[in-house]
């Protein structure tokens, strides 16, 4: 029972992390109609920038606080140089150009930070464990991830549902040309939204850094998962992204935590521990295919 609770929490933590990544993607998708494969690069660079600042200031919090504006600036710059020219293009051009950006950023990181991975230590004030229930210890850092992730998700929900910026974002998602015609500075709005997405991606990257590692290409695989999430949830829907992220997080953790034991009952242990993560990944894609066959525009997507 305790083991189950801990694994469910791990699933929530992973889901929140992926939600941060997916939120930026679904916003740029929904509002600018942009397929941005390079979103994972922002996740990676966010983590690398954080590593630099954390090593420099010797403080995780200070480093993180410095890294976020830097990621925002990078996002705005990428938007101004490349993305802006892609909004009116078809998806194929966007795929090609942002695929080129991935190659560029992966190589750039290798030039600047070198080929070896980096690691960020868990900040000392979060390196203990806390008891979430009497007798059930849980790492404080992972718990902090859940808290921060949930707080950011709430902040985003508030931003989109309650503020003027959010109103413009929602209006932009349903009809770009109309809000431009109504006198909204749509270029500024697009820059802001892209920068916001970059910050969320960078935040996800730097928060994941202490529990995984900072390495080249770290954004590529998780990017695909983020795409799966926004497609399951329905492109442009923050709510959909949240629900899908939670589902995907749970599937992934269940696969890692429980499948090996289950498979070992009828398979040799070595094969079972190799097959389990693969099966949980496969399950995620099967869920996605199932959702798309059932509802071709995702759970919360607008009907075409």
């Amino acid at each position, binding site marked *: 029972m305790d083991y189950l609770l801990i694994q469910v929490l791990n699933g929530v933590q992973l889901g929140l992390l992926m939600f941060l990544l997916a939120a930026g993607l679904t916003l740029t998708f929904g509002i600018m109609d942009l397929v941005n494969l390079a979103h994972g690069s922002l996740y990676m660079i966010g983590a690398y920038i954080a590593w630099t600042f954390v090593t420099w200031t010797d403080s995780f919090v200070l480093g993180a606080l410095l890294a976020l504006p830097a990621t925002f600036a990078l996002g705005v710059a990428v938007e101004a140089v490349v993305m802006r020219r892609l909004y009116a293009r078809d998806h194929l051009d966007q795929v090609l150009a942002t695929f080129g950006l991935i190659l560029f950023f992966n190589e750039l990181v290798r030039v600047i930070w070198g080929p070896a991975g980096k690691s960020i230590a868990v900040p000392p004030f979060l390196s203990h464990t806390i008891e979430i229930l009497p007798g059930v210890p849980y790492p404080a850092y992972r718990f902090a991830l859940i808290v921060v992730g949930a707080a950011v998700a709430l902040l985003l929900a508030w931003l989109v549902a309650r503020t003027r910026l959010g109103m413009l974002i929602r209006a932009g998602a349903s009809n770009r040309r109309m809000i431009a015609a109504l006198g909204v500075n749509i270029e500024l709005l697009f820059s802001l939204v892209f920068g916001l997405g970059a910050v969320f991606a960078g935040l996800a990257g730097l928060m994941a850094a202490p529990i995984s590692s900072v390495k080249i290409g770290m954004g590529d695989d998780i990017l695909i998962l983020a795409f799966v999430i926004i497609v399951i949830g329905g492109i442009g829907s923050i709510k959909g992204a949240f629900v899908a992220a939670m589902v995907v997080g749970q599937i992934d953790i269940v696969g890692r935590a429980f499948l090996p034991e289950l498979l070992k009952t009828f398979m040799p242990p070595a094969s079972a521990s190799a097959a389990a993560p693969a099966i949980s990944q496969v399950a995620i894609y*099967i869920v996605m*295919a199932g959702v*798309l066959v059932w509802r071709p*525009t995702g759970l919360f997507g607008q009907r075409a």
Partner: protein
Amino acid sequence: MSEPLLSPRVLVTALLLAVLAALPLLTQAFDQRYLLSVGTRIVIWSIAAVSLNIILGYGGLVSFGHAAFFGIGGYAVGILSAEGIQNGWVQWPVALAASILWAALVGALSLRTRGVYFIMITLAFAQLVYYLASGLEAYGGDDGLNISRSRFPGLLDLRDKATFYWLCFALLCASLWFCGRLAHSRFGAVLRGARSNELRMQALGFPVFRYRLVACIVAGALGGLAGILLANEGAYVSPAMMSWVKSGDLIVIVVLGGIGVRFGPLYGAVAFFALEELLKPALDLMHKGWGEYWQIVFGPLLVLIALYARGGIASLLGFRRA
């Protein structure tokens, strides 16, 4: 419609095909064995790109999971080989059948979606095969599987590099010929019609879904063929051959060469591999050691192509999209 026999594009294409046809002799004459293996890869990737061009170029369907066919064709050969069945007459039809089945399944499900959703669902299916292969501990898992080349007793010895190259080249010529016939058939016309206006084609009474499904299956079979050849070329299969980056590379090749043009995939594959082989020494020349960072130039080049050179190499030569 008839074009002068000596227009630049005819000359370039003829020259390219002539060089490729004579490549084993050339590499032997100049003692550049390495170039023959680069050439073999170019030819195999061209076949895969021809296959992608059918759905992407003529059908207008952006499939981001085409490398899955490398894997399915390759693993069918690899698994049979690991089980002791080396005969190509068994391996190849099984691999093709597996590719066709997969294409039919993926096509039937993916074609229900449109636009970005189609891109993502094809990507997801390819990832599914990728993870399945990496979970197959019995056949190497993540590390992949060393295999021996397919045997065609008494007919061909694929271990001979030149023989294998010529087989690949012959298959490339056949697929280029087939693709040209397909594009100008009634079938191709329907496919292109649905690309520019699906609703209108449906209103005209064409079952667009079925046409597209058949296009997916044809492309899948060709893609599987490329997978069979790729597995034989390296005598090795691994999940890496169908990572999503490979699917991206295939899209790059098709667009770079000229989308929806018969010889586009060939130009694209030659340019793609040539760029890699040229950028490395060029950067090394500027500064020792820079060569390994060639993608820092190649990446922005792709951005520029996407932004400013849509027609790819084919449009430079004066081809128009079919």
